[in-house]
């Protein structure tokens, strides 16, 4: 992969503007839209926002009107329609588009269109070429292997042919048997999927074909692409990630440490994130945990430097019980859980860190202005994802109307939610029923956990669905798993 020189390739045709001369279109919804709006507000950058008919009660609309006035909010037919985003950006006179996460955040065609159209704008994210290269899990795997970065054994491109899929699965089962794995497993996943959706394990080689067909059909329905990836399923691992930040030069990426995202739903969707990723000073591990953290940070920075990574991004890792790290993928966007890294970080002379503000500032062309040596971390951060779902029933989403949502505020707590607390709120079925993110800081893991439990116990969350059944949430699941955080 060639090193990319983003500033030359992506330079907008208009003269360079100062931050306050820009106007950002917030092309997302819910809590991330609210965080982007607040970040723009803190940077004194005007913004425009969008919402859909289904989202007319979402708190992100309220905040947009509050911070940007009535005229900054536009109703669109869909968040997935790029034409709508461009149309609103033009009508509002925006100079940049922030995609948030999901939707267009990792769509290189969208990023390219934003920067290459006649009225070009800035895509607040990595340059489209980097999204294209690293967004492709296969390319990422090849790049990683070329740099000596360990990756999970398996297919190195999407598979569309059943016979080929079976051959790969067979070889992965044999490989594991040769390695002495007593219960070999193969993972089949939709190559166009993400966020833990469209993934199934195969225990028995004879079952492979039916699982393959099921995932292929699911992928076609949900992602309009029936390609699947087939990999060795590594069991008993921790899921870690490294937060990378870089300016448009792509020359001197820095990291904001590691996160541990191992507490997940059965569908492998994250539920609690902790920063830093391990606690070698207070917990015992069967491997050198401090060394693993250093290794994954070094590997991630090596790759980021190699490609000239030019905005925020996350390198996702699997760490086995024996302490072996394998790169899973690179998320070329801001992550939901960015706040958990930010809450433990300080930059000398600048104080607290807001990674979304950093993303906007750097995306609009400002220099990073600090080095790795000036970044320090203090304490432990936790993030709880509060979701209307039934953990006892395979984390099935719950849909209905929230009647009351209340919690006890605290100086160590940052609550991020689009759910209005002054009125009832019907959860739209078009989106995941994520209700809030709670970010908690403690001076050490024990204090963070204790504060986390105090917060969870303070939550009042009630509602009913159309059948009159009570709201189901994952709060008890979060409480039960707080005890196990960072243990391996």
């Amino acid at each position: 992969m060639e090193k990319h020189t983003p500033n030359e390739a992506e330079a907008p045709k208009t003269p360079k503007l100062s931050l306050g001369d820009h106007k950002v279109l917030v092309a997302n919804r819910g809590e991330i839209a609210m965080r982007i709006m607040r970040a723009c507000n803190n940077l004194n950058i005007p913004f425009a926002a969008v919402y859909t008919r289904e989202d007319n009660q979402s708190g992100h609309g309220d905040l947009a009107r509050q911070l940007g006035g009535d005229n900054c909010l536009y109703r669109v037919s869909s968040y997935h329609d790029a034409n709508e985003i461009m149309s609103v950006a033009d009508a509002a006179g925006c100079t940049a588009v922030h995609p948030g996460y999901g939707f267009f955040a990792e769509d290189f065609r969208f990023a390219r269109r934003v920067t290459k159209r006649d009225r070009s704008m800035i895509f607040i994210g990595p340059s489209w070429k980097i999204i294209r290269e690293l967004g492709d899990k296969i390319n990422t795997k090849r790049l990683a292997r070329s740099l000596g970065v360990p990756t999970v054994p398996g297919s190195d491109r999407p598979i569309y042919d059943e016979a080929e899929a079976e051959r790969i699965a067979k070889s992965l089962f044999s490989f594991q048997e040769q390695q002495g794995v007593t219960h070999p497993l193969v993972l089949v996943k939709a190559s166009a999927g993400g966020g833990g959706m469209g993934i199934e394990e195969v225990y028995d080689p004879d079952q492979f074909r039916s699982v393959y067909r099921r995932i292929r059909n699911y992928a076609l329905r949900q992602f309009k692409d029936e390609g699947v990836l087939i990999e060795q399923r590594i069991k008993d691992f921790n899921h870690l990630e490294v937060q990378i930040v870089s300016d448009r030069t792509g020359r001197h990426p820095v990291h904001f440490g590691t996160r541990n995202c191992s507490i997940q739903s059965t569908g492998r969707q994250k539920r609690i994130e902790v920063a830093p990723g391990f606690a070698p000073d207070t917990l015992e591990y069967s491997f050198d945990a401090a060394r693993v953290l250093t290794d994954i940070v070094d590997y991630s920075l090596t790759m980021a430097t190699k490609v000239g990574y030019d905005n925020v991004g996350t390198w996702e890792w699997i760490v086995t019980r024996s302490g072996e790290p394998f790169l899973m993928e690179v998320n070329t966007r801001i992550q939901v859980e960015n706040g958990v890294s930010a809450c433990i970080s300080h930059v000398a002379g600048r104080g607290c860190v807001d990674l979304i503000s950093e993303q906007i500032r750097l995306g609009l062309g400002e220099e990073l202005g600090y080095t790795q040596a000036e970044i320090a971390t203090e304490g432990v951060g936790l993030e709880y994802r509060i979701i209307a779902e039934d953990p006892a029933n395979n984390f099935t989403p719950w849909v209905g109307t929230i009647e009351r949502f209340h919690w006890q505020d605290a100086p160590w707590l940052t609550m991020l939610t689009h759910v209005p607390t002054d009125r009832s709120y019907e959860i739209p079925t078009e989106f995941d029923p994520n209700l809030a993110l709670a970010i908690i800081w403690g001076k050490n893991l024990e204090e963070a956990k204790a504060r986390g439990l105090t917060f969870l116990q303070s939550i009042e969350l009630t509602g009913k669905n159309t059948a009159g059944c009570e709201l189901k949430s994952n709060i008890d699941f979060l409480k039960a798993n707080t005890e196990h955080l960072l243990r391996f």
Partner: protein
Amino acid sequence: MLNISQLLDTIKAQPYREIEITTPHTGVLTFATVALGDQVQGPQGQWKEKRGTLLATLERERNPKPICSLEKGEICALHTELEGKFVEANTPIATIRHMLTREEVEHIILKKTLYLFRAPERAKYYFTPEVDKKIHAQDQHSVKVRDGMELFIMSRMKREVHLPYTGPQGLIYTVYFKYNENIDAEAPLIGVCTQEQLPAIEEVIMRIKTEWTGR
């Protein structure tokens, strides 16, 4: 069995419905040469390939999108104050007063005659691959359903669960949902008639054909 004559009389007493025309997406709106009280046409042709009367054009990203009348009728509201303005998605631009067609009356009466299997929750619905294949190869009348049969996949927030059919054994007479569209809770998914009901249903259709002179 329903009293078809009575039902037809009720419909004949109020044979209109008002259709609100809204913008499908954002863009700059330009009205066509239409005015309040004008008669407009809906899509025509064997496959409805000829679009209805042009009401307005919505331009977005230099692509003009014609907004046409969806049914035959009379323009009873027109929001000309939006001329030349950038409008949001789902903005009402006109209302058409439309007299019910024979097919619409059939549709109304069939909904009262058939056994309706309804969506338990707001979600997207699909037939299972086997049933889908059969419907594509033949038609929905070829699918016999019985209580407990795995008929649907219910998809909500990208999670899929199988939804078995519950109700009397019979044939799928009408399909009320479209793929990739969200269906509200309690909206009908399919209309089912038993083999014995089939002649009676066909008679209902015949009576509407002869008695409804709406179009």
